[in-house]
């Protein structure tokens, strides 16, 4: 039995917090202990049931295959398609994303990320209003007022409040939680709201109106407001508005509660305007609580590669962006896709039913470490090494900060980047063969 190796300051590759203070003990080439990570991150780093072999569906049944066979079959499927969808990307590295974008360009497909079911509306809101933001350390060091709107970090981003927000201590916030006002806005009580100083419960779907009301109050135009907006009494709204206005440094964190309730991107649009206006009274920033650890990364890479951060249609050779038309959900719901490559995302579990059904009638290639409901629909299944555990790579935190993921243990499996490179090679090979045959 060899000595345990201690790896310090590893970066957790689970959620958008991208905690980088994780200490990992490795014994006999396996992770034996994880310190500092929350249970979500720990579970990922410790590892659980993995797929070991590629599979190809033959006569309706998934049978074991070699990696080269899987790459060839994947290339065949993609080249035969008029409109292949390359979807997922949120739980793999930027290095993989770069290869994926190249592949989408080469085969003439549509590339989209899980933002489509998550913060896609936030992106659209940003296209209307911009993003008045900051890095998480600014919140830690300066924020005396924090709002969590439509999100529940106590459950979804467990270390957020200690490392970056409510309970963090910084240069101008030495008192930590004691020196802060925490406001939660949601449609029901949550673990996060239970630890708030103020909880504003709103009627589901009324986020837009409530934000407009707050904007009016902050601008001193509250007289014309009705007595109640979104189930909240005017006096309570006025109280919240006053709290926001008197902050020394305020931060709003928001999540799916507001991106996916009635209004969608208009809600975010309005929240961004609220923050811009608050900046004429005091200092305020806003930040989306990104779910998957690298949904931010695929957005950044896609933006610098194509000009757009999500839902990019490369079918005609030049990038075309139009969420509502080019997003994965839109395409699958309309059955306007004839093949799909699903990577680093469990599409079947996370899509709305009508969308997931769209996958059932087309060939699907899955690249994932784990077997999941998407596997059942797949025609080619390629297991991969996990970025941040078995492969180095780059990821972007929810505030846009890029960090380098470590490799903690070895794996015999190829990385996503290597798999995509393999598929690209097969695509070239197949094209060359067709060209020779045609000549």
């Amino acid at each position: 039995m060899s000595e345990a190796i201690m790896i310090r300051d590893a970066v957790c590759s689970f959620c958008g917090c991208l905690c980088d203070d994780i200490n990992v003990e490795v014994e006999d080439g396996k992770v034996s202990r994880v310190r500092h990570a929350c249970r979500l991150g720990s579970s990922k780093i410790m590892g659980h049931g993995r797929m070991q072999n590629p599979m190809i569906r033959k006569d309706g049944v998934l049978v074991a295959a070699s990696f080269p066979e899987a790459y060839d079959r994947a290339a065949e499927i993609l080249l035969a398609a008029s409109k292949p969808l390359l979807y997922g990307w949120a739980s793999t590295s930027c290095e993989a994303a770069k290869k994926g974008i190249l592949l989408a360009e080469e085969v003439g497909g549509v590339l989209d990320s899980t933002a489509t079911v998550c913060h896609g509306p936030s992106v659209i809101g940003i296209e209307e209003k911009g993003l008045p933001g900051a890095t998480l350390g600014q919140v830690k060091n300066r924020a005396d007022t924090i709002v969590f709107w439509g999100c529940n970090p106590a459950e979804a981003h467990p270390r957020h409040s200690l490392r970056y927000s409510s309970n963090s201590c910084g240069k101008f916030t030495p008192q930590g939680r004691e020196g802060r006002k925490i406001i939660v806005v949601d449609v029901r009580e949550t673990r996060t709201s239970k630890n708030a100083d103020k909880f504003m419960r709103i009627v589901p779907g009324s986020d837009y109106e409530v934000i407009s009301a707050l904007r009016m109050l902050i601008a001193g135009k509250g007289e014309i407001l009705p007595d109640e907006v979104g189930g909240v009494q005017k006096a309570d709204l006025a109280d919240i508005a006053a709290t926001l206005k008197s902050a020394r440094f305020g931060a709003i964190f928001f999540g799916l509660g507001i991106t996916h309730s009635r209004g969608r991107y208009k809600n975010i649009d309005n929240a961004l305007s609220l923050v811009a206006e608050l900046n004429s009274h005091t200092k305020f920033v806003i930040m989306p609580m990104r779910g998957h650890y690298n949904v931010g990364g695929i957005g950044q890479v896609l933006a610098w590669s194509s000009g757009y951060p999500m839902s990019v249609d490369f079918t005609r050779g030049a990038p075309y962006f139009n969420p509502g038309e080019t997003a994965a959900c839109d395409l699958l719901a309309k059955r306007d896709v004839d093949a799909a490559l699903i990577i680093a995302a469990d599409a079947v579990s996370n899509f709305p039913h009508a969308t997931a059904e769209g996958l059932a009638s087309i060939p699907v290639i899955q690249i994932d470490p784990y077997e999941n409901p998407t596997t059942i629909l797949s025609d080619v299944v390629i297991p991969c090494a996990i970025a941040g555990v078995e492969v180095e790579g780059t990821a972007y935190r929810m505030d846009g900060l890029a960090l380098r993921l470590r490799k903690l243990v070895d794996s015999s499996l190829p990385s996503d980047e290597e798999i995509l490179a393999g598929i690209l090679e097969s695509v070239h090979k197949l094209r060359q063969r067709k060209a020779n045959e045609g000549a």
Partner: protein
Amino acid sequence: MIIRGGIVYDPANGIYGDEMDLFIDKGRMVESAKGEEIDARGLLVMPGGVDAHSHIAGKKVNTGRIMRPDDARLGTQPRTAVCRPSTGYTVPNCYAMGYRYARMGYTTAFEAATPILEARHTHEELEEIPIIDKGALTLFGNNWQVMECVRDKDLSKLAAYVAWGLCSARGYGVKIVNPGGGEAWGFGTNVKGINDAVPNFDVTPAEIIRGLAEANEMLRLPHSIHLHFNNLGKPGNYTTAIETLDMLKDIKPSRMRQVVHVAHMQFSAYGGTSWRDFESKAPVIADYFNCHSHATMDMGQLLFGSATTMTADAPLEYGNARLTHNKWSNHDIELEESSGVVPMAYFRKMLVNAVQWAIGLELALLVKDPWKVLMTTDHPNGSPFVNYPEVITLLMSRPKREAEMATLHDQVPKRTTLGSIEREMDWTDIAIMTRAAPARILGLEDKGHLGPGADGDVSVYDLRPEEVDTSQDHVLVKKSLATAKYTIKGGVVVSKEGQILATPPGRTFWVDAAVPQLEADRLMVDLEEKFARYYSVQMANYAVQDAYLPHGKAILAGLPILSEVA
């Protein structure tokens, strides 16, 4: 490679329009060589263009892209056998960035401002820009460690930090933007002048600038400090410019170069007390530059049409957004900096814009020595870089300037002296302002000239300098400059008549400055505390790793290595 019979402008080597052959071997200029022949007989030949101040990579550029799908859909070009797709006009995607510079005959471009914490992102993007060589300047002017060293008058620790910061960011030089103001913006305020104390830090912008200038010279960095003045963009701010420059004139440069390079001088040459009586103070500024030798500038020329303003001067951007009712992105970086991005458009009939347009040109034309003035538009703040030929022809042609001025707001002649300036620049001036001077100012020894040993970067334009009247035929000149006949990078023809033929990766220059171990150790005590208490990341994950510079080129600098002090 042989470039045959061009009319060569290589001012750094005293060549001003001589007909000569040029030779390249193994990517470098040599006395003689064999190989591929490029017929350049009678055509204008210069070293590849060097852009010393442009916003081409990093978080704020990408934020510009993300918030502007309306810009991305302009300039869209599909992929070809050689090229990836292009999108964007003011905020091009990475591939367009490289192809468009190359088509214009430029072979080197430097990213103007990178915060250390987010340098990894900058390098990811730089690596994705094809063809051109690059570098990135690193921001230091609002940095907590810097301000503390300045407050404590601890110059050697400050120098150690600058060296450490450049190494961590793989940066090329010291960039200072609205010093102190970026930190004040952390709580939503700004500084009002160079002697206005920075809230919570007990230092003034003047002290920060001087401290960094001294540290810069102590480290013998190739470039000088690169400075974006306080009060940028405000009527009457020319006094801040003069005051700041004067404060630095006694500092001795450690190399044969300026002590301070002023970024986009146009935005800091304003007179008047408000937008109503706004006027140009370019003559005063130019006069100062004519009488002093410690400073250089780049123009920051504004052109009519679309732009996207992006700068570490975050309070300025907030102001821009409120003034124009535009979308606004802001990003404050813990312990280090601030930044903002706002789309803008400039109009001929808007008096302020028209005067701004005139100021950039006035500055360049009134400063006598072209070695002190670089031709830039502070891309994409004043205009996208693809419009450089427009700026060049305005500098070369008085008739063109007059024709333009006739289309502007009628009050313009009262606010600027541009109409009375007769000077027209010639090819020597242009070759200096776009090639030789930027290379010298940055301290890039192998760029901007065609002497033996220089990088084999050459641009050939379909223009006969001995026949063309650059004053009258400005339309032809502009067209020829927009699309080089040949752009040669490291001895490879990368662009021919606008078609990209090859996309070799460029190199990324950065500076590795050495400091005595004792100073580095003293510094580490401070840094360990900052990472333990204030940063939201661990020091072990902070610096840019080797993996991000597969084509990196380190330039050594710093204090001579003494024997280690235990």
